[in-house]
């Protein structure tokens, strides 16, 4: 997917929220959806099960309007976190310009986080993309939970962020860190545009 189309004067950023099941990817999108003015957002498509587990993916288009003469749109996707939906995850990753890895801060979810991160790496490779070339931001969600249940951001940094990408502590349910994460991934993606190397 081309990030920028000069002829059509369009910039379209596809950002995928990746992470283990129930880590809060859809919650991120819901929070963003609630803050974007009605005139700037499209319909949020969410295919979920009765227990609110993402079945296929969530999709939230945001129209940022004309920026520097370019019609700028963000397309935010989530992937289903459950292990058995890997084909869907791979599909959603296709053409991504940036990835937000939403980690679950609960100590007992650490293995799932690591597994999901490895899954991200392998799925990107399936698309011929080196994860090191992909703009990536880490979000450590659920930091609002009791301290005894969660790992601190430095602990999570040690465990997950071996590449040293930008990271944010978050409480997606109440919005803490949500827009900071989105802003960080947007900057990384757009800086790639400035560097002249289009994304995937």
């Amino acid at each position, binding site marked *: 997917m081309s990030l920028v189309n000069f002829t059509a004067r369009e910039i379209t950023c596809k950002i995928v929220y990746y992470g283990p099941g129930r880590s809060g990817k859809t919650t991120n999108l819901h929070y963003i959806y609630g803050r974007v003015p009605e005139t700037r957002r499209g319909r949020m498509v969410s295919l979920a099960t009765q227990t609110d587990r993402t079945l296929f993916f969530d999709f939230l288009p945001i129209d940022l309007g*004309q920026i*520097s*003469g370019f019609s700028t749109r963000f397309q935010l996707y989530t992937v289903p976190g459950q292990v058995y939906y890997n084909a869907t995850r791979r599909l959603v990753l296709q053409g991504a310009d940036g990835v937000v890895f939403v980690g679950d801060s609960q100590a007992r979810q650490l293995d799932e986080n690591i597994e999901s991160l490895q899954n991200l790496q392998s799925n990107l490779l399936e698309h011929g993309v080196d994860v090191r070339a992909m703009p990536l931001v880490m979000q450590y969600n659920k930091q609002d939970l009791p301290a005894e249940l969660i790992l601190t951001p430095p602990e999570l940094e040690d465990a997950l962020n071996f590449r040293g990408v930008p990271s944010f502590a978050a409480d997606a349910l109440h919005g803490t860190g949500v*827009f900071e994460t989105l802003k960080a991934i*947007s900057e990384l993606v757009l800086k790639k545009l400035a560097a002249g190397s289009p994304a995937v």
Partner: protein
Amino acid sequence: MTSTLHPRFTFETFVVGAANRLAVTAGRTVAENPGSAYNPLFIYSGSGLGKTHVLMAIGHAAKAIAAQLHIEYLTLDEYVEAFHAAIAAGQGDAFRRRFQNVDVLLVDDVQFLTNRKEMQAELLRLTEALQQAGHQIVLASDRPPAEIADLDERLISRFSGGLVVDMGIPDYETRVAILRRKAEERGSNFQPGVLETVAKVEFPNVRELMGALNRLIAFQAVNEPPMNEEAVRKVLGIRSGDAAAASPAAASPAAASADEFSQFLTDVTATVGKAVEAWRARVAEAVLRWEGEGYRTGRLEQLLDHETPPAVDEAIAAYVQDVERLKALEAEVAVLDPQAAGDKVFRDPGQLPAAEAAAAKVRDGAGPPPAPSAAFPLDGYCAGPSNEIALKGARDVIAKPGKKYNPLVIVGRSGLGKTHLLHAMGLELAKKKHAVVACLSTQQFVDELIAALDGNRVDWWRARYRRATAFLLDDIQLLAGKERTQEELFNLFNQFLDADRQLVFTAPAHPNTLDGLEERIVSRLEGGLVVEIQEPDKGLKRAALERLLKSQRVAADAALLDYLVDRPVESVRNLGALVQRVIEAAAAQDAPLTAGLARDVLEGAPPPRRTLGTRTSGIVVSSAGGVRSREKMVWDWPAAADRVIEDMR
């Protein structure tokens, strides 16, 4: 009750940036096509971001395109006040009619609809009526419809059914542009970097930005040397390296978190601004701007296909120059032939030569409306008691066209000088600056319309008259039975009245006694000043005779003048005919022009007396008497005996 549009609040004085471009583009579109593009248009933004400016700019732009449009701007409070006053006066229906007839209604501060159920119902009714009638309504508020507390669901859906656009906080580039423009308007010069330093402060609205500029201007006015960046920081209390810290918005975490998306948008805008090559951004901005104004931008878009920066600024400047030329051509053609002005060639800078050719074609075909005849100067018009009111009315109209008597209707029988006075007025009105006077007979007006209909050039024909500053029509009774012409005249009439442009008509009798004229036209004619020219009095006739004889270079003796003045004529025209006969007779007989000759010519010379068998009646015919012609006079009487015998038979 209604506020007037502030003359400075136009689109030209509004600085457009990413945050308000959509609103401005929508506003321009609405001004160009009121009632058809986005109806209603709902603009919302925080305080001080330019809602009122855009609202008024729409009014100005719409008026500039179609001067006849009825445009009203008012705040919701003014609307409520007017409504209450109307209800108190028992004029509720008149209030509704008043607003339903507005072509473009601009309502500001709609957020005050909260808890005003009766006004919501009234506004809903008005919005529906305006939409149905194809009239435009534009509303401005500090929040979107859905967030106006206690707002009727039907109003929300009605407002959302048009276009709802927001205006955000201007970005850095826009803030710089605003500051530069305002500083220039106030004649203040700042050192390079000063305004940029101010613009780095993220003021929550433009008003506060202006406040900061005011402080700088005031400070610079009393201090030497000129301000530098450091002084600016000091004056505005900006900490070095942390411009945003001075922003009241940034100082308030609650306010900042309340609009996370706006903040995000600002950040992304800055990032994209850095990411997109500057020359591409300039081209894309230009494309967006001119596309929004309805021009084809293919020429600019081609620039974006280049890998390396071409001569962008020169290309954009050339494009803008061509657009300006197209605008000028379009405006010129719109006056001459509105239909032709709609040609897409005037919207494509790539086809400038074709546009020039199209304009030239229209220019060639568009003559001015028929002008008054130079044969009827005002100083050649004789005054007397019989026409003094008409002449006074005419002079007042000449002095203050469109202001005092509009329309002026001159009535009187044929030959009394109505046409002369009409053309004389036309000639005087035409002497005024930028005057275009249309003066013609009704028959010509009808014939022209028929020809225009036949040639499918009615728009062109209308435009010819609509650009006139005065419209003078002779013999309006000839409109009888000509429905289409009356329709056109009615529309023209209203436009002239609305624009305070003068209308003058002549008719043989009072308009309300003429057959075949539509009531709406009659009532408008009677609504002006109707003046009557009477049969010429002696003074008028004497003045007319003197002028006639003088124009023929004939010396008139007093007896001749007395004789001719005493002749019973119905009009100056007939008097002229008499004089002409006498002059011709004098020339034919090579005799001097005397009262005797005139009497001989006009009444017939008495035959030589018979010496036998007959005698004259001995009646002395007075020149002022009832016997007017020789044919009706019995000159030869038979002898009395013969008459008796004849009678006895």
